[in-house]
Structure formats: C-alpha cells, structure tokens
C-alpha cells in the first residue's frame, strides 16, 4: 500500500512540476539578476525606511509620467507614515475635486481619501506626450515576469546601444526590456532626489528604494499575509500530526 501512496504522491508532484515548468518566453532580453530584498522569503517584511524613500523617488520622478490609480494617500500608513504626514502630502497636490458652478472640472488640494494624482488626464494624452503610454505602476511588480528584479533591471539597465544596433529615433536602449527599445527616457541617474535621512542617492539606491515601494504598493497585504500564514501552517502541521496519531491508534486493531 505504501508503494501506491508513494507513487500517487510522486505522480502528483510530477504533474505539478511538469506543468509549472514556466513557459520559456522566447524573448531576447536576459534574465535580470537576483537582488537582495527585505521582502524575500517566508518571513520577509518591507524595509519601511526604504519604502518611504522609494515613495519620495516615485513622487518626485516617476509621478511626472506614471499614474498609480489603485492607491489613495491614506494607504501610505502602510509604509509607516503618520496621519499628519499623510495629510500634508495629500494637501500638497492638486487633484480633481468635482466641478465648479460653471460645470468645468475643478482642482483642489487633496485629502488622505484622494486617489494618487495622475499626471495625465487620459491614456491618449500620455501617449501623445511620450510616444507610448506609461503603464500604471500600482501592480507593475506583479505584472512582469521576474517582478522586483525586473523593475530594478529596467531602471538600472539603460546603456549605449551595442555597435550595429539600429535604435529607432525617440527610443532608448535598455538591457532588460524585451526588444531592448523602450520609450521611457532613463528616469534615474543618481542624485535625482535628496533623501531626508541622509542616505546617499546613488542610482542603485534610488532604484532599490523605489522598487521596494512599488512592491509594497502591489502587495500591501504581504506582511500580514505571511504572519497569518506562519500561524496557519504551524496549526495545520500540529493538527495533521495529531490526527495522524489518532488514525494510527484507531486503525491499529484493524487487519488491513
């Protein structure tokens, strides 16, 4: 009987393994190198200081082109900002606040309940201005293979095109972008922002910080999820062991 069980398990594992063999996407971009992230592994959490610095990079650089429509300013409590800080951040941006008495759309200071300000009114406006629509960054980390490593790769992967590479006008060469030609001009060069906590704003640091922020933005539940998960898994392991012991005792007198 044990043999059949083992076989069953082996079969299940095989099916699973076989099917998960990730589809090798035939693209010429290299696999972005693995970086060290605070949120890696089953116990990983978000480095709050890095996420806050990353928010600064996002709002001072990326937000000129990219929206983050799924986020509200109140959500920033998730990276450790206080209610007062959030209120100040929201109040400093002009967001649509309904219409004036002529029926024209009106702008006004944001509140914690406001959605993140979008740089362009419509996707078409963004495309017209930049040559390609900059994607919304709310869940971008989940929306690309290799996730955080890929976004980091894009931000640090701008290079001069190799000799003989035909770069179309208005496009930029990027090591990790599929096809290597991207419409985004290199957004980070180092020292694009001045960090309040005095961290030197090298390119790698800025990219690392903004990717930490974007990973939080895409998975704000991650820390709570893993914490609950550890408890659930421990409980189930204990419960499973106990049930198995009971089962062994119960079946001990059955000749089978």
């Amino acid at each position: 009987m044990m043999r059949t069980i083992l076989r069953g398990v082996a079969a299940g594992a095989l099916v699973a393994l076989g099917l998960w063999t990730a589809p090798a996407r035939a693209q010429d971009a290299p696999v972005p190198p693995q970086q060290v992230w605070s949120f890696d592994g089953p116990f990983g959490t978000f480095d709050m200081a890095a996420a806050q610095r990353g928010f600064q990079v996002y709002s001072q650089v990326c937000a000129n082109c990219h929206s983050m429509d799924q986020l509200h300013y109140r959500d920033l409590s998730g990276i450790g900002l206080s209610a007062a800080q959030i209120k100040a951040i929201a109040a400093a941006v002009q967001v649509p606040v309904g219409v004036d008495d002529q029926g024209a759309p009106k702008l006004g200071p944001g509140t914690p309940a406001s959605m993140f300000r979008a740089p362009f009114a419509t996707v078409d406006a963004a495309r017209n201005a930049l040559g390609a629509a900059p994607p919304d960054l709310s869940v971008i980390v989940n929306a690309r293979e290799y996730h955080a490593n890929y976004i980091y790769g894009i931000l640090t992967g701008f290079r001069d095109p190799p000799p003989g590479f035909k770069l179309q006008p208005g496009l930029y060469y990027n090591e990790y972008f599929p096809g290597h030609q991207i419409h985004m001009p290199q957004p980070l060069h180092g020292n694009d922002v001045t960090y309040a906590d005095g961290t030197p704003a090298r390119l790698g640091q800025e990219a690392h910080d903004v990717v930490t922020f974007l990973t939080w933005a895409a998975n704000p539940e991650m820390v709570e999820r893993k914490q609950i998960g550890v408890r659930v898994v421990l409980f189930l392991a204990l419960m499973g062991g106990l049930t198995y012991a009971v089962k062994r005792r119960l079946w001990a007198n059955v000749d089978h």
Partner: protein
Amino acid sequence: MAGLNKSSFTNPVVNWIDTRLPVFTMMQKEYGKFPTPKNFNYMWNFGALAMINLLIMIITGIFLAMNYQPNTQLAFNSVQHIMRDVNYGWLIRYVHQNGASMFFIVTYIHIFRGMYYGSYKAPRELLWMIGVVILLLMMATAFMGYVLPWGQMSYWGATVITNLFSAFPVVGQPIVTWLWGGFAVADPTLNRFFSLHYLLPFVLLGVVFLHVAALHVVGSNNPLGIDVKTPQDTVPFHPYYTVKDSVGICVFLLVFALLVFFMPNLLGDPNNFIPANPLQTPPDIVPEWYFLPFYAILRSVPNKLGGVCMMFGSILVLFVLPWLDTSPVRSARFRPVFRVLIWVWVASVIGLGMVGAHPPTGIWVVLGRVCTIYYFFHFLVLLPILGKMERTLPLPESISRPVISGNSGGGGGLPSGAAARPMEKA
C-alpha cells in the same frame, strides 16, 4: 405509503425530527455505519477533498461576488478594491484563485485513482460518467471565472476559446456571436459569464450529490479491485474513514495554505495584472496550467476544426472508457502490462502540459503531436486489445485474505479476532 420513521435516536428533539424526516437515520446509514472496504489507501481521500474544495469555492465566491462588478470598465479595479479595501478581501480572493488550482490538482488525482484501480468498470460505469460531467462543469466554471478579473489573459483567453466555435462550418460564427452576446468579447460577455460562473457551481453541487448517491448504491471500489464478500472485508465509515479523511484534509489544507499565504501568484500569469486591452495582444496567450494539456492537443492538430474536435474528444473519450477497457480485472495491481502503460499515458499528459506552456515551434510541435497521438492510442487501441491479450495475475480470494495462500502479512491471515472486531460495532 406514508408512515412515521422508527427513529433510534434518543435525544428527544433529534428523535422528533427524525421520526418525521429521517435525515439523521440517513446520515447514520450513509456516513456512520456505511460499510466501507477496509483496505483503502490514501488515494481514496481525494473525493472527500474535492467536496471540501467545492464548498470552499462556493463560500469564497459568494463573498467575492458581494464586491465584484461585472462591467468591463469596473471589473479589474473592483478586484483590486477587494484585495486592498475589503476586510480580508485579499485572503478571500487568494483562496478562491488558488482554490481553483487545488480543485484541479485534487480532481485530476481522483480521476487517476479511478483509472489506476479500474473504478470505472461495472457496476460503476454511471458513477464514472457522472464524474466526467463534473469535470466538464468544473472546466466551464473555471474558464468563465478566469475571465471575471478582466486582465489581459482573461480577455484574450476568452477571445481565443470562444472563437474556437467558429471552426464549425455554417453554425460556427452564429454560435460565437450568440456566446458573446454581440460581435466581440465585451460587456454582455462579461455579464453572462459572471451569471453562469455563479450558477454552475450550484449545478455542480447537484451533480456531485448524484455522484455520491450512485456511489452509495454500488459501493466503493478498493485497491485490490475485487468485490466486498463478507462483513470482515469492511469497516464502518465512521470513525475509520472520517478520521483517515481528516488526515488527508489537514495535508490538503497545509499545501493550500502554503500557496495562499506564501506564493499566491505562483500559478497565475503576470499578464493578468494588466487590465484587458482589446488593442494589444499579449506575446503569447496561455491558459491556466490545468488546461494546458488540452490546449496542447488543440494546437497539435494542423486543422482548426480537427483540433477543436480532438480537444473535446480527449475528454469525451472518458465517457466510453468503461467500454473501451475490455479487461475484466479492475485493479492495475493484477495487470502487469496495463500497470506500465497507465504511466506511459500519464507521461503523455504531462508532456502535453509542457507543450501547452510553450509557443508551438520546433521540438514542441513534434512532441505535441506524438503525445496527442499516444493519448488517443492508449484509449482507442491499447485498452481494447490489452483486455483480450493481457495475462493478469491471480486475484485474491477476498479483501480479508489478500493472498490466496492465506498469508495476509502482519495479521497472519486470520479473519477472526482483531480483524473482525470493528465490524461487530456495525
């Protein structure tokens, strides 16, 4: 003939109800005393696991539906709203999303169990066929569910799969228009998919009831594939199998929890985090993993109509499996050739799964065709012939005396004493 049930329950309230509506007597008969072969291995857990999984899907689905918006402008954002703003919405959604994968893992193993131990053979043919209906309903439900979050793969998957029907001559295009409720996958499509995605699980529940009802008429098969002969061959379902199933449930939930809490997006496609865009086709359109073998069969046939027919045929062939397999012996244990061939068939299905995950070029085309041919060859040629030619091993006399010589391992082959004790309770 009307008549009150003579209830044996002593609790007055239970007795009062049971006298008028004998549900307690029924539960006692079907899940309490129900005599069950005592030699099940853990492969017999998967039916109960599938049942639990269905209930988990229905419960999480109902809570998702409270906040989901079946509208192409709102659907994607409403799912993000569930993940971010609804209390434990991320948990409900990740359980539902990974629950679909777990459901297929469990069901595929359950089906494999039936194939390995010949559970589809007389008198369980109808039970098996109802099972195939369940598989088809699950597939339809999962397909339509995957469309609901309205990401790129939702949209393009729906487009590719519904378009398959256009392969049929004359009626094809009208069928596609009818499915879409218009001339493209759009709002009417999303709306009806939501409606049907809500409905089908309850239909599924009804069919599962029939499946279990049929099981309780013909009784369970067992790893030896021989009939129950004496009460010594069985144990009462409770507590023996309720406890054994509980072990399985713990392991199942453990695997499920690892997925949900630590790698909730492992089995998903990153492209589904991009809102549906009818103007931009993703680099390659891949279905969820559990459809990959069938997708591979579809793409392995050079002709579109042929591919569609082979794809549906690959499941429909299961309906007639009880008659394709001509061997009178159920369990693979006593069929030395079948026992090897069933694994070759499994290998062909895994091969097809891998083919389905890759763009159809080069080696993958060849592998896809070889596996597709073998898949059908197994059912349509090997099984009918094998039943007539195979020299099966001698079957044991009974479950209690697994070996003819009367030596049943640890128990020394004595059917009395310890072995008989459990049945005295039944």
